[in-house]
């Protein structure tokens, strides 16, 4: 796989690169559209939040009155706003022709925008998805407080799942919304007292070779609890999601994706070692999104701050044998390369 980082994500900024941030402006943000800094009395600059971080209300209230807040914008709010409007326009179109036109327009904007020369980054798309589908703030906050990498993954995995859904022909906003929400729960099983960096690496390793996660943990002397958490986190997450989301969903079947996101089509996955040769596309969407997003923070940040091709190339470089996602892969590949027309079967 490609581990190369295309751009350094963060380096200490100079004062000239930073803009003043008004308290009123801060209060309106739920996610940080850029890096947020605090200038101390001694003249030092401290980074408070990264672009994309969740801004809890108490935190916003706390810093609202501060006169020393600075920020460096990353998220292109105008492009995010355009995307949101374009999507809403499509969904609100009543006339079939208008509907088709609006849909094609939106899909093209998205496809071209996320290409290298399109100027749209995955973090922008994540912001647009957040605005369109409103993720569960409580869960998001819990993710961020417990483990920031899991939060950052959630941000990317959920928006990627929506993107894959769109490319695969799922256009119903209610379905897309639920895909977005459920995707956030893929890692919910890892929000646990026994979670460690090694467990996240095991999840990473498992993507490349079945059984690799377990082996990695054992090779590195992980505790029994860590191994257990790794092997059971799909079930933990699924049970949590059932309890929390189950009754609210129009498509509760989607929750099965949480349980199955580490399964393979040849029975080498876990927790049930199922053979998944008869899965529909929607059942494998989240599995693919989860597989595409890295657990390593530097790679993850690189993917967030680039267009889709960086992420796609990294995924393409990995073996996907055993993952029942080849239909989604084909459709997505087709969508990336061609102007938006009806996606043909592979």
């Amino acid at each position: 796989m490609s581990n190369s980082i295309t751009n350094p994500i963060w380096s200490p900024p100079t004062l000239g690169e930073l803009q003043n941030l008004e308290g009123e402006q801060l209060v309106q943000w739920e996610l940080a559209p850029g890096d947020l800094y605090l200038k101390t009395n001694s003249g030092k600059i401290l980074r408070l939040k990264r672009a994309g971080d969740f801004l809890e209300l108490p935190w916003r209230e706390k810093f609202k009155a501060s006169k020393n807040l600075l920020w460096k914008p990353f998220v292109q709010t105008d492009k995010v706003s355009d995307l949101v409007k374009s999507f809403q326009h499509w969904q609100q179109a009543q006339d079939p022709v208008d509907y088709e036109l609006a849909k094609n327009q939106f899909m093209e904007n998205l496809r071209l925008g996320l290409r290298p020369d399109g100027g749209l980054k995955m973090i922008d798309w994540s912001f647009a998805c957040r605005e369109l589908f409103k993720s569960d703030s409580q869960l998001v906050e819990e993710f961020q407080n417990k483990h920031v990498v899991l939060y950052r993954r959630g941000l990317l995995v959920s928006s990627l799942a929506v993107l894959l859904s769109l490319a695969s022909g799922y256009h119903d906003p209610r379905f897309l919304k639920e895909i977005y929400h459920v995707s956030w729960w893929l890692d919910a099983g890892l929000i646990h007292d026994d979670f460690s960096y090694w467990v996240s690496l095991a999840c990473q390793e498992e993507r490349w070779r079945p059984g690799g996660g377990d082996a990695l943990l054992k090779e590195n002397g992980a505790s029994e609890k860590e191994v257990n958490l790794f092997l059971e986190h799909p079930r933990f997450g699924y049970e949590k999601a059932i309890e929390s989301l189950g009754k609210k969903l129009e498509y509760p079947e989607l929750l099965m994706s949480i349980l199955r996101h580490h399964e393979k089509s040849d029975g080498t996955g876990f927790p049930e070692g199922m053979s998944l040769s008869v899965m529909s596309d929607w059942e494998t969407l989240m599995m693919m999104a989860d597989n595409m997003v890295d657990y390593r923070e530097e790679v993850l940040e690189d993917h967030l701050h680039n267009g889709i091709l960086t992420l796609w190339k990294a995924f393409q470089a990995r073996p996907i044998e055993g993952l029942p996602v080849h239909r989604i892969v084909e459709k997505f590949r087709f969508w990336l390369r061609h102007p938006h027309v009806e996606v043909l079967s592979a």
Partner: protein
Amino acid sequence: MSTNRPYLILHHAGDIQDELQEYLDSLQAKVVELDGYESGMELTHIITTGEQDYNSLGRMFNTVEDDIKIVALGVVKDYPSFIANNGRFIVDQKWFSDQMGKVALDKFFKGQASVHLDENFPSMKEGSSFKVTNHLRIGNDMDRLSAFVHSHDGSVVNVRTYVDHALYYLFYLKQAGIGGAPFEVDYGHTGHETIVQIHLPVKNYVAEYLLDSFGEPNGQDPLRYLLAICAQSTDYMEVQYIQSASKLVLTGLWQNKKGVRTLRFGSLLINQVFTTAQIERNIEQQLMLAKTKTAEELEELNNKSLPGHLLEMVMPETGHDGYLKDHPDLAKNLVAFAIDKWKETNPDQDIAQVTETQMMDMLTDYFDAGEIANLQEVDVQHVMDRVRKNNVSQAYEQEIDRVRGSLKDDEKFQQSLKDTFADKVAEKISGDFDEANMAELIKGTQAELDVPVVVSGGAGEGDAAIMVKGKKAKDDMIQKISGSIDSEIESQMIKGSKIKTDDFVMRISQGIGDQVKGDWKYKSNLVDTLAPKKVQDHLTRFATKMGQTLDKLTSSDLQLFAQSELPKIMDEFVTVDESFVIPETVLPELPDYKFQSIFKNELQAKMQQLYPGKSADEASGLITPEEQEKLLREVLKTSVKKIVASNPGTDEAALIKTLSHYLKGSEADIKTIISGSREEVKKIESAQVIEKLFSPPTQSGNEGGNSGDAANGILIQRLRQLESEFNTAKGQLEAANTELKVLKDARNQMHKIDVKSKDAVNAMMAQESEADAALLPMNQKMQMIQDLASGKEINPEDAQRLKEALEREQQILQAAKQAELDIKKAKLEMQQKESFFAQEIEKANRALKSRDIVVQKAKDGLALMMAKKDKEISDLNIKVSTMVGAMNNSPQANNAQKLRALEQEKQSMSRLVEVYKNKLTSMASNMEKQGSSSSPKKDEEVRKITMDKQRAEVALQAAQKDLTKLKSRMELDQAETQRLRAEKSRLEEALKSAISTSGPIGAQASAKTEDQSGKLKKLELDLAMESQRAGKYEISIKELEAKVAELTGALAKAGSNP
């Protein structure tokens, strides 16, 4: 479900064409003609035409219960009865000439299925797909599908009809909580066929959901006919349930309008969809299988031991940081070894007194020195701590004894120990033997090879065991002299004092050898002191015959005597007693001669092997010194091994002496070698004991009955037997107690009767005595009788008294007979009662037993039922919650609110109408006022206005009427809503009661809810229409108002310009 059965197909009707026959042959299916059918055949399919009475066919062959699938080779008009009787395939045989037809056959017979169109129909060339999440928003996708079909010469109308109806059917499933979304619609074209496939996830899909949807079109209940329309709209329709993935796949296929049509009528395949009864039957079968399997596994488990070992209980985990912490098995072995070793070396001392040095010494003898090297001080301390604990050491000792005992009975193991001992000795001796020794051995061997081997008991009597007669004594010695190791044929006795005879025989044997050669002192001693008198006499005669005196006899003379004379002497005083059985005490064989013989034979054999056909001299000339040394060492090793193996260790001293003599080594060295070898063998034995101590017993061990577990097994079996005997005895005791009680009762009753009769007799006797005393004394009576007998006359008074006395006696006899009869009756009664009680007890026992069996069966049945009911209740709960959710989300929930809004709207409209009415009235009166002074032109205008006003009024009245209607309609709607609410509550109640009675609800309830939802939707639409109409009225009123205003303006203008 029938896939596991071999295909047995009944050809009931219709012609089977070649393609189908070939396919069935390839499946190795057996096709039975109707004539050849016999009841009891386990049919899998019935092939028939489409014109059958499927109900009677189903009843005749029990097609549903036995899952016999019906295949119709012609048009089926009555879908419902065909499907209800397990009809699963309607097909035109002509289609089997196409590849697609063969694919369908594979699906039907082999159950092949996929959710992906290209996998289901590999000949697919191009296609597309769309996802349906909202059935109200499929128009655009349907248009695109239609365009695709149209461009491929397909039947657009049929395809649209099929997809529309299929989607609605699937949405019904979703609403009922059986199906999930999204539905994936894939479509494509193979070049000859258009195919549309829809799949969705479903839960617990059963054939009942499908059967109901193949009915006749019905205006009220679309669910009843949706699939029938689908089937009639396609050339081939397939309903496939993939149970493993819980997916339902509906496929429609249409052949091109142009080209050859091989599907001449609508075909249908329903695959892997089973009725609830079939599923239940399958579950029961699986359950039975599982039960049988479990029983078998349990039986198997009964013969297996539990994991772990009792010794582990007395051996807690190592709690220190030494080497043994990570090697718990070694820790256990060391403890066992130390306890065993201590017992061997310090049999009289308690191991609790072991010192660290002693422990270290013991451990250094442990058979795996490498492990001992790893030990740390804490480990040694740990082992000491363990062995010092009384419970640990005792438990281990007992186990070691048990295992060692079992190993002693293991002949193979004992033999392997002997072999190992021989190996070790031979290895050491041959290793320590230098060239000089070897040369000497060869030399000695050559010289002695021709020495005759004389076996005690005399030549030719090798098989005899002799009892030699000696002098008579109380302790007649019985000693077996073994001439050979072969089986004994007869026994003889040597009588004499035990010690003397023993020594005699021994020394004669030894004397024949070379130890006493020329040693006259020995011989003299032998002859003088030990030989029995007869032997001495014979020897003296032998010496005289030789012309010598007894003391001059040479060893060769003695040898000659032993060979020729001794056997004769023996014959003289030997008596044969075949009945006598001699204990197996064998005098040691003479290893020296045997060694010579063995060595010679081995050497010759090896030389022959190396140089076949050569003499010993020729061979020795050919062999190199190195080869010779190697050969000799090898032969020596083999010979030593054999000689040691033949000496089981009972006479180690003799062995040492022999080996020392022949191998020219000191006895001390040989002893060291032998002891060392014994030590090594002991180590092996200890290792084996310890290994066996912690290893689970083998099956053979159980069978052999030597191990503790086998003993435990026997003990358990014995305990069970005792328990059973105890139970029987307990039952018998209870029966005996009951019997005793009955007998006691009877006895009491008897006693009472007895007492009563005695009392009666006594009373009677007393009465009689009194009467007798009053009437006639006994002697007088006897006198009178005698007088009468002798013919004397008695006076009439006496005669009267006698008569009375006799009558009284007669009465007493009668009473006694009666009493006797009563007693007999009572006895009989008692016997009858006893027998009755016994029968009753037996009956009660039988009843109890049968009740136990019934209770047990009921328990099992209840457990199964409980599990089943639990599942049903859980399914019903899910259905109820889904339905409640659906009802809450349905228009009913919002209906009240909408009605309220409409009511408000209606009221505001009424108010508006009133306002306009007033306005119009005032406008009319104004106009009238103005009109009174107007011109004809104005009059005309006024008339127009008046007419307009009237029209407006009429319109207003009409609007009011409409509003009234609307209002009443709304009231009706409210009533309907109320009714629906009540219906909902009733439904909920019905569901709840259904849960309690666990009857299936499913599709019926869903359908009913759907029906109600539909009605509500209709009402809502009606209301919307009324509102729309009211809106129109409002607009017309506004228009009127505008017109009136315009007219009023015009009138005013006209008024101001006369």
